[in-house]
């Protein structure tokens, strides 16, 4: 009896132990599963959520700008110049300077933007998310991320410059109340927009980006007012690009025998021509290959009739990264680099008949190198040859959305 009781007790204890052991194992497994699941969820959220790095960067750059302004305003010198400050402003963000004695500014679209409440009756520079619209002052705080307040009697302005294709200067409306000896002639409200839609020809709109540009800051004290100029500095490389683009237009004008509208940033022409004709054209226009100043913006894609799927017409970007980084060209590494920079698919020449990326090459590269990569045309086939007049970044964006941040810097 005793032994039975003992045995039953023992077996009960054993089963209890077994249960607790199982429970323990189960608990551990459950814990691991939960941790793994949480990790997976965090990973997936991270992968698919929008990167807010551009926001952090814009805020960091805004802080740097306002700190420099603060240093200059607090300096006793009546005249100061800060030569170059690289400033990044992401798409969708705007930096606006408000004067001490004025409650609003105007942007280039003639929209009145009221000073946020936090600035009260002081001068301030504010960072906005989105385009601030506060025509009646009731929504003056809308979109404001941050404002830096300055206690001094400051007037912020920018030097007015003509709109340059593809890259705007500051976005403020013209103002005529900047008056001190040797003041710049054309002035605007200080307003930097990360991106804007610029109307062209009354119908077209062109999306342009600020990205990273240098600004220069000038402080002038006159008549108890501090005039603080914050202006975009023309970038030599951007100027070069403009001239190159103009040259590309001229070249295509010659080929097509017609004048292209130069106000359009991107253009596609699809004349259906035979393979032999296409070949002849390319042979007749060695300048497309030889004159590097034209190449940057012209992309020629060729495919046989019926397979004119641009996405499959993988085009070369080989010299792009090399050119922009000014590095010695090494053919073996190039496809990797172009893939890295703009996320283009790798070059597979057997997938198409002819492709030519008529782009710039570094000065030290033999022009024959590009030609040697090309595939012969079949003169008997009809072909479509398309010429795209566009920034390479546009291409990447169009065919691989989200992939051309590198190229976007060039717009």
């Amino acid at each position, binding site marked *: 009896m005793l032994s039975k009781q003992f045995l039953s007790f023992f077996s009960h204890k054993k089963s209890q132990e077994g249960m607790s052991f199982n429970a323990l194992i189960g608990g551990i497994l459950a814990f691991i599963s939960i941790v793994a699941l949480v990790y997976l969820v*965090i*990973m*997936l*959220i*991270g*992968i*698919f*959520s929008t*990167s807010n*790095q551009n926001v*952090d*960067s814009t805020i*960091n*750059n805004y802080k*740097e700008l306002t*700190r420099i302004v603060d*240093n200059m305003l607090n300096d006793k010198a009546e005249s100061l110049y800060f*030569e*170059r400050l*690289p*400033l*990044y402003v992401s798409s969708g963000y705007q930096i606006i300077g408000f004067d001490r004695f004025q409650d609003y500014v105007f942007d280039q679209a003639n929209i009145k933007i009221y000073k946020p409440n936090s600035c009260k009756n002081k001068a301030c520079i504010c960072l906005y998310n989105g385009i601030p619209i506060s025509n009646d002052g009731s929504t003056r705080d809308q979109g404001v991320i941050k404002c830096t307040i300055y206690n001094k009697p400051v007037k912020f302005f920018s030097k007015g410059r003509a709109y340059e294709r593809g890259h705007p200067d500051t976005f403020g409306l013209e103002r005529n109340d900047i008056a001190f000896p040797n003041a710049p002639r054309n002035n605007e409200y200080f307003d930097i927009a990360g991106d804007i839609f610029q109307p062209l020809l009354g119908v077209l709109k062109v999306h342009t980006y600020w*990205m*990273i*540009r*240098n600004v220069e800051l000038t402080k002038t004290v006159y008549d108890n007012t501090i005039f603080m100029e914050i202006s975009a500095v023309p*970038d*030599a*490389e951007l*100027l*070069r690009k403009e*001239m*190159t683009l103009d040259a590309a237009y001229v070249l295509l004008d010659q080929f097509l025998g017609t004048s292209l509208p130069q106000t359009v940033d991107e253009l596609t022409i699809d004349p259906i021509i035979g393979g032999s004709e296409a070949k002849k054209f390319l042979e007749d226009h060695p300048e497309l290959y030889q004159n590097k*100043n034209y190449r940057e913006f012209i992309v020629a894609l060729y495919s046989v009739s019926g397979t004119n799927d641009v996405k499959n017409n993988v085009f070369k970007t080989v010299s792009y*990264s090399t*050119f*922009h*980084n*000014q*590095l*010695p060209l*090494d053919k073996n*590494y190039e496809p*990797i680099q172009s*893939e*890295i*920079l703009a*996320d283009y698919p790798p070059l597979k020449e057997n997938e198409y008949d002819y492709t030519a990326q008529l782009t710039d090459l*570094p*000065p030290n590269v033999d022009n024959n190198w590009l030609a040697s990569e090309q595939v012969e045309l079949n003169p008997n086939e009809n072909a479509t040859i398309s010429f795209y007049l566009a920034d390479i970044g546009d291409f990447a964006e169009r065919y*691989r959305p*989200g*992939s*051309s*941040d*590198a*190229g*976007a*810097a*060039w717009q």
Partner: protein
Amino acid sequence: MIKNHLLKKAQLSTLQVIVIALAVGIILIMAAIVWGNVIKNKSDIEVCKLSVLGKSYSKPGGKSPLQLDCPRNYITFYENQILSRTGTREIKKKVTVKGIQTDKFKELTKDIVFQTIADEARNCWYKMGEGKFVPFDQNLFAPTTACLLCSSFNFEPKLKDNPVDYEGISLYLNETIIPGTEQTYAEYLQSPVFQRQRVPWVFIPFVVNVVKVGDTYDVTTSDTISTGGTYYLGYQAFNPTTVKWNFIDFFTLLFKGQVRDEIYGILYLINADNMSAINCGMLYN
């Protein structure tokens, strides 16, 4: 009697004690300020490096919640000194002239300018983990390239008005041994990613310039630093396969939090007016 007299003579008056105490105090305060700046300067570098490390390795899904703490250094060359400003703190930068470390010199020379740039480049490369880390987001929507500005070099107006060209920065980097090491600057700045042979270049040992040629502009490289210009030294990180939708990349991204191992970065030294000549999708700081 004589002994007493000597003892009395050896005793210091209250005034003397105060003067000595003041002198010692001033010396200590000055030393503390100097050392404080040195320590702060060094700690800035370490703080930045730690933040780079932290951000690079805390990217679930390729995105880190951490912030980088790497402010820009604004270096201004004067005729007889160099000022370095980081945030609100300004210090005189030390250079070695004729074997002696000093923050004052008789005149600005090529060696002093190159030394300063090389030193900043070394610090920048060190802070960025020698190109091995990508402290920027690498998820699907992150930019392909991202930059961080380490230093900006400028010259005082007097030097700008009569610009002098200092040629041969590449040679300087190739031949000059980093103090306290056995490596040249060029060797340090190119390792170790360079050795992988994935990338034929890591450090751009020259200045990128855009020059007007006839009616057009052309991009050239130069080995010259002009006192008439402003130059940026920065780090550019590439995020090569972010948007690649192939199986391996996706799972690498999922489980490692970053895409493949071929990520790398470069240092760049560029004429400020040609900022867009480098492909920066974003400037972090």
